[in-house]
């Protein structure tokens, strides 16, 4: 066994994150760790990676017990973590990032040669002198892998690696994973996607609420069995509402061009969204969809072209704690900020005042209706769990009674139950006559959610044909053919 975790428990205050968990990664094997968000997968990986010490239990490498005091320690033992979000320093070049992670000397000429040799050997090409901030999402992930392997990792811990990738990119990643295991390495693949685990893993372990509920070879499990193990019960899913096809046009854009922050931005978009429609955008990060959504939400000014959006517009940003909520402020304050001065609790002319007791009351009602669980309206937004934060964000967006609702990755990091609830709210908003525009980097979510699907590729927005399947949509977002391709 390359890596063995035995009897691991970990708690944060009153919360028991892991309870007596065992996990082993063998050479030549992909071991999938499956579970919902909050099941304890990340905590387990952080213990394996040396970022967190376990309360009890042991970590062993090659059968010998070890105590990691830091991530560097773990790396010294051949454990390499590939985080879901890039851990590259944005201002550094690719090679500086590799030097930082692997402990290599910094002298530029030698470093470049060394990096080039490595990427060639791994068959993962990457220009050493590019700044990390300019890399696409999949190249950022590639950099993460190269960083881990530069430090001579024998075990790779992959944390939700496909969450931000297009299907073809995922395929490429898994081809690399197979090469790596064939070369004698071991892989722990953390995921909440069943199909992925079934497709790639040699062995599957399911975590639920911090405990192992199932662990067996791939050959001995079924999709149904895994679902039951993950969720531990049946899901409540709101039925999709029937869209109003003939609602008024609420969003209209024509030849729209928006400059991005350093990237290419949005080069060309023409679209029409009617009230009652839920339109989902598919695309790999950095292809113009972010600029489209933010222009529709009124946050960035178009560079060129026509854009007409009915008011009021509400926006649910992807990053809940820096762009969405202010963690240090209370629920009430966050609601007041989001709803704006049109709210009933903002009174007076000239010097506008806030009637806090009215705002508190309304926040309490919203929290109740949207099932936001907290220590009350005066708790800080930072004290909420991710799912409850997202529900609060959606609640306050809807409180504006928007005619247009824009949401970026509205279920990122949420568990299945919370995801279903958020989906239900979005459908309900459309059913109530709003035009809803949603971007998700999860193709399945796009297909489940959208009445219509728009595709962002290379800064150009096109509409996907009705009834498109996952494979063709995957090809479209990589700009490989589509209905209009010449």
């Amino acid at each position: 066994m390359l890596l063995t975790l035995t009897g691991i428990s970990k708690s944060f205050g009153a919360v028991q994150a892991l309870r007596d968990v065992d996990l082993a990664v063998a050479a030549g094997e992909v071991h999938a760790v499956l579970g919902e968000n909050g099941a304890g997968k990340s905590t387990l990986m952080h213990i394996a990676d040396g970022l967190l010490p376990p309360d009890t239990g042991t970590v062993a490498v090659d059968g010998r017990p070890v105590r990691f005091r830091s991530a560097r320690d773990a790396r010294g033992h051949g454990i390499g973590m590939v985080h879901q979000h890039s851990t590259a320093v944005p201002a550094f070049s690719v090679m500086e990032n590799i030097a930082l992670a692997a402990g290599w000397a910094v002298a530029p000429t030698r470093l470049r040669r060394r990096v080039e040799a490595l990427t060639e050997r791994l068959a993962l090409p990457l220009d050493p002198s590019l700044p990390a901030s300019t890399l696409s999402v999949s190249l950022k992930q590639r950099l993460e892998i190269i960083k881990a392997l530069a430090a001579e990792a024998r075990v790779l811990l992959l944390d939700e690696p496909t969450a931000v990738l297009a299907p073809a990119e995922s395929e490429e990643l898994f081809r690399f994973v197979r090469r790596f295991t064939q070369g004698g390495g071991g892989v722990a693949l953390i995921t909440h996607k069943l199909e992925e685990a079934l497709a790639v893993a040699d062995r599957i372990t399911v975590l639920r609420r911090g405990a192992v509920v199932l662990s067996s070879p791939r050959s001995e499990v079924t999709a149904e069995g895994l679902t039951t193990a993950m969720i531990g019960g049946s899901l409540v899913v709101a039925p999709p509402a029937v869209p109003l096809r003939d609602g008024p046009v609420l969003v209209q854009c024509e030849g729209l061009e928006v400059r991005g922050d350093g990237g290419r931005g949005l080069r060309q978009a023409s679209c029409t969204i009617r009230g009652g429609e839920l339109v989902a955008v598919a695309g790999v990060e950095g292809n113009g969809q972010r600029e489209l959504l933010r222009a529709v939400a009124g946050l960035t000014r178009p560079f060129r072209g026509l854009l007409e959006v009915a008011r009021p517009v509400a926006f649910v940003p992807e990053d809940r704690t820096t762009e969405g909520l202010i963690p240090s402020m209370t629920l009430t304050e966050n609601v007041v900020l989001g709803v704006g001065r049109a709210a009933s609790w903002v009174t007076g002319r000239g010097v506008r005042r806030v009637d806090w007791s009215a705002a508190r009351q309304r926040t309490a009602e919203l929290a109740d209706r949207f099932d936001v669980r907290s220590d009350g309206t005066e708790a800080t937004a930072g004290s909420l769990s991710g799912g409850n934060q997202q529900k609060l964000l959606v609640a306050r967006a809807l409180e504006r009674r928007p005619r247009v609702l824009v949401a970026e990755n509205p279920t990122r990091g949420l568990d299945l139950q919370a995801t279903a609830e958020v989906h239900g709210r979005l459908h309900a908003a459309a059913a109530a006559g709003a035009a809803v525009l949603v971007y998700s980097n999860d193709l399945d979510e796009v297909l489940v959610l959208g009445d219509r699907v728009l595709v962002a590729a290379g800064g150009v927005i096109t509409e996907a044909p009705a009834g498109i399947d996952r494979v063709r949509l995957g090809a479209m977002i990589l700009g490989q053919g589509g209905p209009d391709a010449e």
Partner: protein
Amino acid sequence: MDPMAVAGDVLVAAVGIATPLALAATGEVLAERSGVVNLGIEGAMLFGALGGAIGATVAGSATGLGVGILAGVLVAALFAAVAIGAGADQIITGTAVTLASVGLTGTIYRQFYGPAGVGLSLPTLSPIPIPFLADLPLIGDALFAQPVTTYLMYILVPLVWYLLFRTRPGLAVRAVGEDPTAARAAGVSVRLTRAWAVLAGGALAGLAGATLVLAQVGTFTERMTAGRGFIAIAIVVLGRWNPVGAGLAALLFGLATALQFALQAAGLDVPYQFFLMLPYLLTLFALAGAVGRGQAPAALGKSEG
């Protein structure tokens, strides 16, 4: 009068004035590259000056430089304990450290040299002309006939540049300043790295203070740094967080100050107060012209804890 000679002399003064500023600013570059703004370097300089004076009184100039550096490190350690150890706001901590330093140096000085503070007069480090180089026209004297502290500055500025941009510890310092989370994931201890950077910055600030005493005036006077630490921080911004840039920016400020006195001494019929404003206004406009938003270390000033 030979205008070349006058220009050369102004340059000599400019380099002299720039030396402590460049030293302190280089130290601050180190700290800021690690993500820490240390407004306490004004205090560290002041303590460096006092340490330099006391050390030189007891055991000569070399000891003075050593004690000055040590005093700067101690002040930086106080700052680091509060701002990094406890994760307190850096600007506020720096202000408090400087405030306390003004009080403490004043008190210690009076304690050491009597309540009325005898005007102690220490031998200063005299200029050491470097053979051949010092004979270069115009810049020879300015650059190569200076006290040893200026040569230390010539060594330390590129050294810190090399450290930051060509070595692993430097890479760690910059990583911590750009993205502490990423640095931690790479196994770099954020607090420890920042603490070292701040302490090294304190050492340079202490050396800068000692330079004032030992290479320039030969005595300590209360509040003698007169805001040079704050100027050094502006110089860091002007030098775009690069030791070499900071060295050049310090030279610019030194030149403006030297010019200011040259203009006063030239007996022009302009109120001298406008000459006094010159270095500061020049720095302001240089900042407006030279600074882009994207230059600062991304995690600068954000306490971590």
